[in-house]
């Protein structure tokens, strides 16, 4: 999918990034093992070193694992993007590719400005060096010049709260001091993009709060932050957007709450009914979104949106359908496509609680994976939106040739005519 790289404020574009890891064979790395293995392969025997499956297609035999499977993402200046998802889903791998610690197997990432990554606090600290010397060492490892470090030295020391011990070797530091010093350096790198892995978990509560404040103020100054965390409340407090990474794919949300909701119902992603708790907001809220799975197989999208409100209102429900979790494809609401149940085009009566059904036939779309956001408003305002409420795979009569993908050619299937002139 082309993630609109033309936007001047786009800082990071992740384009169809795939990452393969080889398992098994790399466990035993001596020349002799490889020679023996090649020999066995020649003789078509099993693997003499063992461990790896010997049957199945070549890829499985070599123990290849695709950790990232076509991740697309577009991140703007000042965004604080939370990456959430289960363990092993590929969050850290994505961060490592972005930080250039490892390379993508396919696809590419484009960035504007320098990327600093904080995958571990105090990377490269030497226990025998003093706090001050380690600030210089760590800072230069992260890409600062010594002059940069000197210019920010006082700030760093102050932020770390290690002032009294700054000329003591860090092997005498408590683990808390060590973490504070490490984060202090990273927080003063002044790069345009900062990628942070789950590193704050180690500090105490007070210091965590300080780190979050610092990241918020960095974001306010225009730093783009990408933050991996398992801690929902941390993501909610810090992030402005979030992406759910699952099974090597990413779904980007503009709202953190929706991302968390999407993540938490992750185990039943294939389910076609999603219920929402009503919160304390006084405005109307969507309570349930249902998509009919049997209709999807015939290229029809049939969606029920239920809502409830504390007062009667002229409901205008709507949907937006996305291809691949990111690219909007079409929208529909009762203002654009009036409610047929109303008699002679009269607007429906004000309701407090209702279920609207949307039916779309003959979608001119290619078969593939789509998501749908549900939306609720009235004639003049928006009340509620449930981003990517349901994820579904649509079967239409339009199927792309195998070597093309929706991400490259778009989801739209048109009827067209070619002729030699």
């Amino acid at each position, binding site marked *: 999918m082309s993630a609109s790289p033309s936007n001047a404020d786009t800082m990071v574009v992740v384009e169809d990034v795939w990452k393969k890891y*080889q398992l098994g064979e790399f466990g035993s790395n001596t020349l002799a093992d490889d020679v023996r293995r090649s020999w066995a392969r020649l003789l078509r025997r099993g693997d003499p070193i063992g461990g790896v499956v010997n049957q199945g297609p070549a890829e499985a035999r070599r123990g290849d694992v695709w950790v990232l499977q076509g991740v697309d993402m577009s991140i703007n200046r000042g965004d604080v993007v939370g990456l959430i998802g289960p363990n092993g889903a590929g969050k850290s791998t994505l961060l490592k590719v972005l930080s250039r610690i490892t390379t993508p197997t396919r696809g590419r*990432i484009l960035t504007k400005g320098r990327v600093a990554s904080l995958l571990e606090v105090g990377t490269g600290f030497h226990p025998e060096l003093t706090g001050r010397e380690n600030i210089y060492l760590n800072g230069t490892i992260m890409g600062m010049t010594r002059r940069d470090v000197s210019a920010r030295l006082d700030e760093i020391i102050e932020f770390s709260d290690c002032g009294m011990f700054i000329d003591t070797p860090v092997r005498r530091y408590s683990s808390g001091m060590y973490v504070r010093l490490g984060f202090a350096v990273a927080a003063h790198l002044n790069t345009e993009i900062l990628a942070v892995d789950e590193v704050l978990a180690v500090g105490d509560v007070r210091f965590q709060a300080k780190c979050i404040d610092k990241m918020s103020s960095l974001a306010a100054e225009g730093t783009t932050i990408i933050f991996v965390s398992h801690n929902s409340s941390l993501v909610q407090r810090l992030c402005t957007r979030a992406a759910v990474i699952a099974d090597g794919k990413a779904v980007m949300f503009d709202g953190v709450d929706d991302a968390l909701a999407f993540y938490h119902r992750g185990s039943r992603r294939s389910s076609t009914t999603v219920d929402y708790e009503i919160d304390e907001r006084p405005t109307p809220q969507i309570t349930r979104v249902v998509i009919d799975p049997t209709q999807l197989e015939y290229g029809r999208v049939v969606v029920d949106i239920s809502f409830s409100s504390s007062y009667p209102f002229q409901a205008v429900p709507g949907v937006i359908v996305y291809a691949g979790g990111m690219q909007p494809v079409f929208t529909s609401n009762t203002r654009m496509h009036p409610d047929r149940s109303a008699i002679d085009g009269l607007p429906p009566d004000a309701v407090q609680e209702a279920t609207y059904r949307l039916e779309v036939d003959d979608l001119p779309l290619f078969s593939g994976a789509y998501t749908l956001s549900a939306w609720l408003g009235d004639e003049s305002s928006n009340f509620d939106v449930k981003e990517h409420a349901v994820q579904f795979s649509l079967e239409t009569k339009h199927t792309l040739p195998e070597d093309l993908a929706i991400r490259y050619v778009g989801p739209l299937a048109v009827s067209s005519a070619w002729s030699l002139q």
Partner: protein
Amino acid sequence: MKDRILTRHMDTTEEDWTLVISPRRGAFDVPIREVLAYRDLVTMLTKRNFVARYKQTILGPLWLIIQPLMTTGIFTIVFGEIANLSTDGIPQVLFYLSGVTCWTYFATTLTSTSNTFRENANLFGKVYFPRLIVPIATAVSNGLTLAVQLVLLLSVAAYMQLRQPIFDVQAQLLLLPLFVLIMAAAALGIGMAISSMTAKYRDLAYLVGFGVQLLMYATPVIYPLSAIPERYRTIAGLNPVAHVIEGFRHALFGTGTTSAGGVLYALASSLVVFTIGLLAFNQVERKFVDTI
């Protein structure tokens, strides 16, 4: 293939971006500008190497001169007195000290460069910087050691000269920086080539340890090149370090078998080795993390 073409078509050109992270890097695509941007890291790693080596030792940097002195002492007894090997008429202490000084630089640079990936696996897995910085810092910190040891050598030589004039210092002493460059290039080249392979095969790491020791006997460290029978001299001369050590002794003491051709050969071959090592290293550095 089709994917690639389509991607190219649909996006703006790569010039709009400061950084493009893609699967492959061209064979000759060495990030020189980036290495220069990280030059302060060379200084900091050099400093770290020294501190790491001598903190919590009683003698500290004195070890820099104790090592060559003790080795020279042993060599003088074993190879000079017992085996009675020729020293081309140079006083034994100076002969061995000059050989050991040069050889130590070459050997330590080669050995630690060949361990670059294995020793820094943890660091490389957590943060990006041009990996070439590490071998460069190794060559620089060993260069500082070399400088100290050269001062030691020259002090011993000056002391002996005062007692009894023995030398005939040549203008070629000005070539000293060139000699150091040749050794650095050869050691880094071989070291980087090996480190690229140790990313996959650990055997090589063990081989390097005693391989370097054996190589010393093939290099005129404990004997002069002139002591080698004529017909083997060409083979011994394939080793660029042989020319460096001979040339260095010639510059200092005016004896030894050396020629401009030999030194030029040493320069050329070490630069070739360096280039090969550099290109291999440059390819492996991006993939290394996945193999540990």
